[in-house]
């Protein structure tokens, strides 16, 4: 990617960043009296066009969530169209997280013997996916889904079929998908020049994912051998040996094993949560760390590829915050409770 094209992309992202909702906007929405007021307030934002199409009676958290996800996907794929060369390839691979999530959804439904419709998938632009989702949805079981993915970049998923048959759990397939997705991104990260900030952000996502897998599965009491199979075979700041030790040892010993300063506080927090039986909050603290670092990256990597990825992560945070507010309001939760569950901006 030429420096001009790169500068254009970064400048464009600088501009797009200003479209993101501010902390005050989010707090204002959290203070709304009900879901109706939330949707009314969102009419003045980028989500307004889609929300205004909704009949008043059909406004519920699930519909709004679909709109937030649609906007998120639009924001991600918009950047692909602005990029060129390696950067375009990187963004294409990075955006395939939605494709991977959709495949996971299909696999889950097929495993549970449930009928799934296309409306349950995250809407993706047809030109950016090689996966034939209508065919996946019509597959009779998980094995057929994996077979249908044989001609795509998810071909290595076949290797996870045997462990799936043995364990009877789709977790191994999902871990396989995460491994394939992050593997593709990680591979291209090395090709993008000046991508130190980029490497840190993607690497951190991999590290956090691995630590979260180790923590959540250990809290469930799963055998270490199975947990090791679930780990993503990519490592950034937490070396393979450390992760191996983390999986083998007790959760209480985790702070002594993962000594990476960046994750120290996070690990202590996760140990406390797992000990206190509050596993429901585990994901939140890992995501919180990722989004906080993405926020910091916006200041640090001002003219770096990392800025683009940090922006995308913050788009994701905004979508998650809006989902939290809409769901919280639908479930008649108070402002304080909703605020506690928001990711700080």
């Amino acid at each position, binding site marked *: 990617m030429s420096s001009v094209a790169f500068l254009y992309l970064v400048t464009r992202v600088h501009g797009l960043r200003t479209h993101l909702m501010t902390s005050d906007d989010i707090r204002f929405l959290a203070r709304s009296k009900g879901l109706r007021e939330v949707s009314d307030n969102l009419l003045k934002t980028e989500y307004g066009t889609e929300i205004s199409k909704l009949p008043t009676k059909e406004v519920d958290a699930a519909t709004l969530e679909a709109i937030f996800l649609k906007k998120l996907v639009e924001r991600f794929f918009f950047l692909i169209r602005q990029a060129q060369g390696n950067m375009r390839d990187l963004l294409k691979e990075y955006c395939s997280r939605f494709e991977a999530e959709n495949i996971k*959804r299909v696999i889950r439904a097929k495993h549970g*013997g449930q009928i799934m419709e296309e409306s*349950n998938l995250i809407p993706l632009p047809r030109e950016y996916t090689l996966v034939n989702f209508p065919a996946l949805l019509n597959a009779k079981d998980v094995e057929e889904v994996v077979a249908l993915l044989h001609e795509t970049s998810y071909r290595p998923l076949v290797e996870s079929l045997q462990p799936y048959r043995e364990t009877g*759990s789709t977790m191994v397939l999902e871990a396989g998908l995460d491994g394939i997705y992050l593997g593709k991104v990680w591979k291209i990260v090395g090709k993008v020049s000046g991508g130190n900030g980029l490497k840190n952000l993607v690497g951190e996502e991999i590290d956090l994912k691995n630590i979260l897998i180790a923590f959540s599965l250990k809290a469930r009491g799963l055998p270490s051998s199975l947990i090791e199979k679930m780990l993503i075979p990519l490592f950034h700041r937490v070396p393979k040996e450390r992760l191996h030790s983390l999986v083998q040892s007790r959760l209480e010993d985790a702070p002594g094993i993962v000594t990476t300063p960046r994750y120290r506080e996070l690990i202590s927090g996760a140990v406390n949560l797992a000990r206190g039986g509050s596993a429901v909050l585990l994901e939140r603290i890992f995501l919180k760390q990722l989004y906080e670092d993405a926020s910091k990256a916006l200041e640090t990597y001002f003219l770096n590829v990392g800025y683009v990825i940090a922006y995308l992560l913050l788009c994701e945070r905004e979508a998650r915050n809006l989902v939290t507010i809409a769901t919280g309001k639908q479930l008649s939760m108070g402002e304080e409770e909703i605020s506690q569950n928001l990711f700080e901006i």
Partner: protein
Amino acid sequence: MSLQRAAVTRGVLLRLREQIDFIKRGKELLKMKRDNLAAETNRLLARVAKRHEFDKRLMDAYETLKTAYMTLGFSRIQSEASTVRLLEAKIRPRSLMGVLVPEIVYGKKPVITSITSASAYAVAEKLSGLMNELLEIAEAEGRIESIAQELMMTNRKVNALERVLIPKLLELIRYIDGRLEEETLEEFFRAKRVKAVIRGVE
């Protein structure tokens, strides 16, 4: 059975005596049934008494569910939930002292091991743990409802036998017994009189 309508014969008396024996035995059986049903109700009430504490745990699980919904959103929770097959349970009637009570027969239990998300798993673990208890409580409540209705009916029957039918029959027996005694005496005097008349004629 009205006193006036009853035929005053030895046959009727005998039949009434047999009838009262039968009714008394029936009353004893009904009393036994009532006691057993009451004992079963007490046993079931002990199970239902856990409900208050259960409700608290259920509310706690719902709070966790709300948090999971807020963290993951409806679509992700729905997707995670789709890996779990439905709980298989059948309700069949079972006879308890002649009372049809519901009995829950468990089939395959839902397996939650495919849930990937930590928050969704935490909720699923709590809710699936509570599901069995919920069914047990529902079964106990259903049984209590059926038993209570039968208990009320049995009690009415026992009361009706004890306070109405048996006293009436006893009275009738006493009446017929008295009338028969009178008739015997009458017959005796008549015979004596006839004898005296015959002797006077001679």
